[in-house]
């Protein structure tokens, strides 16, 4: 039940786009048509599901203050957490490259669908942000997180992002036929729309589950 709550919370309440504005750059750039945003949304969710647990393992067993004590007691006061940015981004870039190669080898049709989006994802803020949020949560809680919690959190954040970009693309496709003041066309109205959608999402923000 705990995990289910966490899932719902990360999809709707802590939505990456509407509550934290992460991954906005690709959100704004790619949400012109539903088809492309479908591809990017799936790719982001997929990569998040792999990178977030992986980065958690690295942080939990290598970087966290005292994390090295599983090797020997004399390492228990080593604190490598200042390296986290570098390690996280390097592992994300490496995993994205690896995923790209594996997908290309085993499923050419999926590769054709996701292909161009995969390299973009290494620099999508959502991926790094989930790793950093997990790190922040890990530092705050005494017990630390479990790997299933991290996986569910990553899945929820990915799906929340997916939901946001799909609905934005659907609205923008319709928007093409409406009469907007010229200087507001394109980027301006997209910002305002995202803001309005975020206000709608705030309606469910107060819910505690």
């Amino acid at each position, binding site marked *: 039940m705990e995990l289910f709550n966490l899932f719902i919370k990360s999809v709707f309440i802590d939505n990456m786009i509407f509550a934290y504005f992460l991954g906005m750059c690709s959100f704004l750039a790619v949400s012109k048509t539903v088809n492309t945003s479908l591809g990017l949304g799936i790719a982001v969710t997929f990569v998040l599901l792999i990178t977030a647990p992986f980065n958690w393992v690295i942080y939990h067993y290598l970087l966290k203050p005292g994390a090295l004590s599983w090797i020997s007691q004399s390492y228990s006061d080593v604190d490598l957490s200042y390296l986290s940015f570098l390690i996280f981004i390097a592992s994300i870039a490496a995993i994205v490259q690896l995923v790209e190669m594996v997908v290309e080898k085993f499923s050419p049709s999926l590769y054709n669908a996701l292909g161009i989006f995969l390299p973009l994802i290494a*620099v999508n803020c959502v991926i790094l942000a989930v790793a950093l949020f997990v790190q922040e949560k890990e530092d705050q809680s005494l017990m630390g997180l479990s790997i299933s919690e991290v996986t569910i959190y990553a899945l929820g954040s990915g799906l929340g992002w997916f939901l946001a970009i799909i609905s934005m693309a659907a609205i923008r496709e319709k928007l093409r036929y409406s009469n907007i003041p010229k200087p507001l066309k394109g980027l301006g109205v997209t910002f305002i729309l995202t803001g309005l959608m975020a206000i709608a999402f705030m309606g469910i923000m107060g819910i505690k589950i």
Partner: protein
Amino acid sequence: MANKSNNLKLLTTPVNLQNPITVQVLGICSSLAVTVQMKPAFVMGLSVTIVTAFSNLIISSIRNTIPNRIRIIVQLVVVAALVIVVDQILRAYVYDISKQLSVFVGLIITNCILMGRLEAFAMGNKPWPSFIDGIGNGLGYSLILLLLSFLRELLGSGSVWGYKIMPPVFYQLGYQNNGLMILPPMALITIGIIIWIQRSKNKELIEN
């Protein structure tokens, strides 16, 4: 002398006509979340300017030795190293603000301004112009950040830079702070309006 005016142009175009946020659509993610108050916004703008300028400088000086296939990883590593330095400095000297910025300092790494400028400019230009380009883009980014945070702080909590400036008389007459301005969605709407105003002043920026 032509060279000098070119450099000046590199510094000034990103502030208005090629503004990273409102025209190039780069680096939106962080700009919205840190603009509730002016102080964190200023620190964030400064950090991004420094990181952009120096990563541009470094990447541009080693651009001929980077193998094309792994350039993204090289760029990310350079940027991440610079961000770690900035993060440690912020923690040492302005701990409160660094707490407020939380993960957003780390997210400078994936800030699209950096990757965008590295790919579009530093990979094909000499170190000095790249450095100037980095500072220019950082300034354009900080400008929008400061404008946005000024509006949000003034209307949302009636203060500027942490000082109350709304006279108490207003409150007695029934004026209230607009709580919506503090919330994230209004940042998006405000930026939309800034874009609207900017584009109606500069007709060539209008999209079709």
